[in-house]
């Protein structure tokens, strides 16, 4: 029996571990569509709506061209509106905008599971908040977008039930212990962020505030996925991969370099995760014996020679010429791991060769997916991926603050730095022990004045955004003041 490489060593492996599948680019709007769909449990078949907002594909319409132009501009603001509704994710604000588009790669469902988890206080208040905001009736629609599309769902519209794909026995990333608590403490950091944002934004929904709330929760969702991927290969669940924020406009070389180095740990962490996951998969299938034996060099070479690299079921079919290159390439990788220098067993050599092949087989590697998501929420600087660094834009900083500091609380900048470092791995300079933390990851030290300037820059942004107040003696207090 020939082995289907992508299906077995990526799709099935991911399904059992992460559950969400970072193999094509995920935009924040995809995640919004997927998350809202999982929360509301429905998606729409809104033929008239889609035809109206996509004038390029459907030139004939009863609706005025000018209105169609405006609708197209608004609903395609995130660049995910295409000819087919099931391939589109609108810049949405209402249940009637949710589509069956699966570009979120199940991140929405994964986040929903975290939000729905009851660890004593019931599900997250974010669930109810989002349900209320997304289900506003025709009279109550409070935002401009859902009001503008109201006439488009009068006909040709049907709500369809969404069938969750998450198995009863949770995948590794959502594993719970005997008491029903998540094993991975990172999930609680994610969950608390959602809860905190919902507490700040609860009771809102009037006009502009509704859209703000939707954006904040989605941005936090994207940050959560990024954070989870970043720590996916971490061996110590209590330790976070560092993310050094570079907040000054012209950072010093040491700061810039350290931030880039901390970003490079995302790739390493994901790589480590993949190698472990593929090893487990290989051990499992070897044990089950469905695909024959995977013990000797000859057996593994035979598997590689007969491997079906990509399934042809999907719409994105790869060129024959490209497919033909995979076998010799995998053999090259395999041989290198078997060589005297690496000196690995045939099975270990195959695991590593398979992990090296993943980046070429899938449309976007998991690292590229994380990078794209991080850049789109403003966590990573734009530009060449080799020069990326962490730099939170003011909108993201706002979300981080609202996800961290509970209502009515006043935190010092030091307390904030401590919380961010311990829960998310975010560093910016206020801790005073950044270099020690970074050294554990082999990241170069930063000069003290750069860290001081960096903290000042972040404080200034918070101050200008109304979240921080600077007092005499350098004391900075941060709070969410409505």
């Amino acid at each position, binding site marked *: 029996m020939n082995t289907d490489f992508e299906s077995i060593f990526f799709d099935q492996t991911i399904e059992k571990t992460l559950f969400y599948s970072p193999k094509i680019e995920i*935009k*924040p*709007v995809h*995640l*919004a569509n997927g998350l809202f769909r999982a929360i509301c449990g429905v998606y729409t078949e809104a033929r008239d709506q889609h035809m109206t907002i996509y004038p390029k594909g459907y030139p004939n319409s009863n*609706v*005025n061209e*000018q*209105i169609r132009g*405006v609708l197209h*501009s*608004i609903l*395609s*603001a*995130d*660049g995910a509106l295409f000819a087919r509704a099931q391939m589109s994710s609108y*810049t949405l*604000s209402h249940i009637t905008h949710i589509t069956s588009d699966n570009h979120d790669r199940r991140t929405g469902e994964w986040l929903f599971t975290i939000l729905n988890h009851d660890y004593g206080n019931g599900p997250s208040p974010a669930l109810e908040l989002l349900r209320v905001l997304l289900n506003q009736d*025709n*009279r*109550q*629609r*409070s*935002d*401009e*977008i859902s*009001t*503008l599309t*109201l*006439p488009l*769902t*009068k006909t040709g519209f049907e709500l369809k039930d969404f069938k969750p794909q998450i198995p009863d026995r949770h995948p590794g990333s959502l594993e719970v212990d005997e008491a029903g608590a998540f094993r991975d403490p990172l999930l609680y950091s994610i969950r608390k962020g959602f809860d905190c944002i919902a507490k700040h934004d609860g009771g809102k929904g*009037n*006009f*502009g*505030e509704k*859209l*703000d709330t*939707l*954006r904040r929760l*989605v*941005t936090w969702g994207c940050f959560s996925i990024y954070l989870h991927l970043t720590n996916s290969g971490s061996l110590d669940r209590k330790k976070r991969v560092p993310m050094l924020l570079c907040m000054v406009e012209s950072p010093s070389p040491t700061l810039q370099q350290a931030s880039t180095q901390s970003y490079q740990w995302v790739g390493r962490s994901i790589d480590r995760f993949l190698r472990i996951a593929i090893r487990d998969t290989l051990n499992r299938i070897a044990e089950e014996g469905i695909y024959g034996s995977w013990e000797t060099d000859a057996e593994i070479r035979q598997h590689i020679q007969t491997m079906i690299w990509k399934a042809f079921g999907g719409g994105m079919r790869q060129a024959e010429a490209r497919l033909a290159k995979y076998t010799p390439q995998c053999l090259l990788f395999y041989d290198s791991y078997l060589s005297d220098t690496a000196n690995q067993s045939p099975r270990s050599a195959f695991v590593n060769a398979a992990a090296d092949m993943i980046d070429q087989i899938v449309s976007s590697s998991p690292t590229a997916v994380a990078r794209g998501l991080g850049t*789109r*929420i*403003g966590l990573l600087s734009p530009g060449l991926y080799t020069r990326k660094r962490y730099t939170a*834009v*003011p*909108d*993201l900083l706002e979300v981080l603050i609202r996800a961290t500091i509970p209502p009515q609380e006043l935190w010092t900048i030091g307390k904030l730095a401590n919380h961010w470092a311990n829960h998310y791995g975010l560093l910016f300079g206020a801790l005073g022990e950044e270099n020690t933390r970074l050294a554990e990851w082999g990241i170069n030290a930063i000069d003290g004045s750069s860290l001081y300037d960096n903290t000042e820059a972040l404080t200034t*942004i918070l101050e*200008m*955004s*109304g979240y921080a107040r600077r*007092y*005499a*003696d350098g*004391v900075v*207090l941060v709070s969410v003041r409505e």
Partner: protein
Amino acid sequence: MKALPLFEDLAEFYNGHNAVAERVEESKLQYMHISTSLDTAIEAWVMQGLDVILTGNPGDGKTHLINILQSKGSLASAYLEKDASQQDTQTILKIWQQRKQENIPFVLAINHAPLRNLAAEVRGYPHLEYLANIPDEIDNCIYYNEAPKSKLQRTIIVDLSQREIVTTSVVKGIVDKLCKQVLSTPCTDCPPRKCPVEYNAKAISSDEILHNVVTILTLVARRGFHTTMRDLIGLVAYILTGDRLCATRWQPVKNEDGNFSNPTFEDYVYYNLLFKGRSHLFDAIRTTFDPANYSDSDNDAKLWAGVISDGWLIPKPVVIIPSSLEELKILKRRYFFEHQHDTAKLLQRMLPTTEYNFGAMIEGKLDDPSEVENLVGMINNLYAPLHPRQRADQSYRLRLWNSHRYSVGNPPGYFAMRSMPADNLTIYRPKAVPQITHSMEVRQDHILLAVQEWLPGDPSLRIDWPMYQALTSANYGTPIEVQPFHILRRLDLFLRGLSPEAGGSRHIENIEWSNHQYRTLVSIRVNRTNQSYEQERHA
């Protein structure tokens, strides 16, 4: 040389050592003290048995003030805590509790942050629990509409960071103190009648010239710069001495290019020194207004031609025809400070319109309802830039603009479904709460655009210099994409906050869509009941 003990002190005042009250000998402190109405107010409060908290930022003069009043003996009946910022909070609270029981007034000088800590730790001190209201009280030191009721029992808080010290009387007080001894002892180091310190002292002792100095400092304050007493004394010290003793004044100095040159009299004249010093205040002056850099349509050509020979307040040295642009710039400065003219009118000619209008708005010289319409028009125009002839009702209704996208980046446009008549908004100016209103002037560097009958917590937009500048620049065509994020954030907060005031959902909604890149505005009417589009209109 000006063989005065004070001369060295002047330099020390400029570079800071003498400006920190804790480090200065009492005699110098006494000498430099500028008495204001706050002094008498504190004395009166202590006499009445009230507790007094002086708070603010370092350099605001808290400790200095207590030291002065203590040496006068006017605070003898009170317990004084002169630098509570250095003390343990619990110790202060214990002493305060004790003094409270003994009915001894407690006078406290403390920075903002430790004062907040003190308020946070007050639980457990039964007679002082009301101090937990301190943070609110600090926030309410300034009010806009209705004066808030104090929640502190028999306690007065004075937030010196809100005090405006750039007033003619305070600056004159400093000038008089610093110039007195300079003018009383002739200089023996400089050539006769060529000592720049003497020249500067004589000049800035003149009321007319001092008024022009204060005018520039007021422009700086209006832009939001908080000048401390320390800054101000340092500034006067520097523009008098140029941070040099006369004994070394005329020695060659190293230029920026590394060469040495002999200093000239002009190098040490106050009207040049004012734009040369090193401190945040000097930086602010340079970026705010230097007469050398702004044109005066009435006089620049005359100065260039050397035809203005009359009206100079200090005729010597004789005004010469400038031979270079640099000399013209120096002459323009001299003209601004030393020529008899109506400074207000001169400023009107020289200042950019934005700066002048901002000043007029702050001072309340304009009609407030018209100014509200002007601001509303500018806010609308920032989100929906239209050609002037298309701006039909931009000034009469404030649209509550919004945008939406999940990824970072510029939105394709802005929309608004709600609006509010400009008549529902008004302008408020900052005022000191009644208990301290007679003791200090508060900084006038902003106004508040807010709903009628505004109360703290209601939505408001602080129109300060950066906001006014952004709105004006948008009106002149600066696109929203390049506006600073904090400006947009503040506007967002204001517009969101107004949503509940703009009414609920309507049977027919009118949604405006602004494509700011193409400067178009589209109105779409949606009938909620029929789920249909009504007649559209294109502006």
